[in-house]
């Protein structure tokens, strides 16, 4: 299935993916309106260190430990995409304890958040990919 792949060779550490991610989740149409004076809390995160940069977001694992560990059943995997039912999540953070990529993070509103490939947003396709100026994040079929 189509997945998001990251190639750090081309990551410039510009953090645009984070802003496009945050923008997408607001479902606004204008980024300035959506993010002006806001501290963003994106589902994709850049790790930077001594000239190396790369973005990390949910890998949508074959054997998702977060889903198996979830105590409420809020996390589930459908059609290869791991999504969270925010209204069932009670922020116990068992998923944060389990995720080997650190791709699940707390959010303001009492539920955890993670990359859901933008399927719940108005745009519907991964915006971090669209926002990457250098092809460091791609969304493609590689035939597992």
């Amino acid at each position, binding site marked *: 299935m189509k997945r998001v792949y990251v190639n750090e*060779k*081309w990551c*410039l*550490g*510009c*953090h*645009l993916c984070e*802003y*496009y991610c945050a*923008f997408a989740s607001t479902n606004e149409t*204008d*980024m*300035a309106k959506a*993010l*002006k*004076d*806001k501290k963003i809390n994106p589902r994709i995160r850049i790790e930077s260190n001594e*000239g190396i940069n790369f973005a990390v977001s949910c890998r949508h694992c074959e054997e998702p430990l977060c889903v198996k560990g979830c105590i409420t059943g809020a996390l589930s995997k459908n059609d290869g995409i791991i999504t969270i039912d925010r209204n069932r999540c009670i922020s116990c953070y068992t998923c944060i304890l389990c995720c080997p990529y650190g791709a699940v993070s707390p959010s303001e509103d009492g539920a955890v958040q993670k990359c859901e490939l933008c399927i719940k947003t108005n745009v519907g396709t991964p915006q971090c990919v669209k*926002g990457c*100026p*250098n*092809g*460091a994040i791609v969304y493609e079929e590689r035939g597992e």
Partner: protein
Amino acid sequence: MAINYVYPEYEIVRNYDRCINCRVCERQCANEAHKYLSDYNKMTSDDSKCVNCHRCVALCPTRALKIVKSNHTFRENANWNGKSINEIYKQAESGGVLLSSMGNPENYPVYFDKILLNASQVTNPSIDPLREPMETRVFLGAKPDRIERDENGRLKNNMPPQLKLSMPVMFSAMSYGSISYNAHESLARAAAEMGILYNTGEGGLHEDFYKYGQNTIVQVASGRFGVHKKYLDSGAAIEIKMGQGAKPGIGGHLPGTKVGEDISKTRMIPEGTDAISPAPHHDIYSIEDLRQLVYSLKEATAYKKPIIVKIAAVHNVAAIASGIARSGADIIAIDGFRGGTGAAPTRIRDHVGLPIELALASVDKRLRDEGIRNNVSIVVAGSIRSSADIVKAVALGADCVYIGTAALLALGCHLCRSCQTGKCNWGIATQRADLVKRLNPDIGYKRLVNLLTAWKHEIKEMMGGMGINSIESLKGNRLMLRGVGLNEKELEILGIKHAGE
């Protein structure tokens, strides 16, 4: 601290209603023109550091930025314009030669823009490239002066070595050093995909790119950087660089700061040392010396590769070309005074040389008058900006064109003309690893392929309009051209009629 006489040329205009402090402008500006003030939670800019390369403008996700020319002026003076005054301030400050990059930006006539193309009406049909074959393939190289037959009367293949191109365009010489590894990879891969050639320039050839040899022209310049047997063998053709349109009569200078490990290996010079190409080849002080170099290179490569001699368009270019056509060279490359460069003394760039249109017309005519046009192919360079320029150049008599600046633009260059600083924000004219990676060859080569594909379509459309279905029939076909607003002399040199004639 001394007074700074030079006022910033550009102003960075930020729309604070749209700025979301994402700081991408700050992170992407190698000149550090942008800064985040954490205690004010606000971005700020320093106009004096801006070179107007548009990197920040292009990446700003909310379109909050624009760069405008400062309207700060000196008192009106038709003679002493702001540019002249500022240059004097700079030199009075530095005591140094003014340096600039890319091609001559001054307001000299652009003859391509004063030439119009013909199209068929009634008496013969225009040809629709979507329905009929339309051929743009060209072969570069000397043509045989006589045919030979074997005992059964079959034609012998006595054709001298040729370059086969899918369209009359090649990427002109840009050295690894003056441009980045990723820029070179983009050019090489695009050339391979399009069935054309790119040119190593004088910086040698990185081992990773030997595999593109069939699409590579290896250059031999006065510095002889990176020239060795394997290098000569690896290319499809060899170019002797005698001159460059942007700086006729001047050598090259790659500052040591750009000579990192890879470059030093490729150029075969110590890391960190300046790479200086002498103004002349010190083994070529005359035409017969050139002939010797041509033939020694042919000997070295078993007469299997065409030899290109590249010269800058200067006043007696026709005579020089005619000499070269008799020197054993297979191809002559002529570089007009608008040709680009990684760095040149401003005065040379802006005041020396000839427009390529005139140089081409006079060379083509001279070689025909002397009956030696078939000894060589002619490649022209020095600001080919569009497919129309190509069609006009071919109709004036060129076999092919070199594009440099146009290719760099496709890769993202914004002609800020600051290559000499080595801080190219687009990852092209730089060797700083963090900047080089900004040019992803997967993206870069595709953009080049797109550009050439588009141009090829346009060339076919224009040819079809003229009722020509093969590029050979366009070459030197000056009846397809008419001048507008040109005087008798210019028309005579271009060998074309005025519009309406």
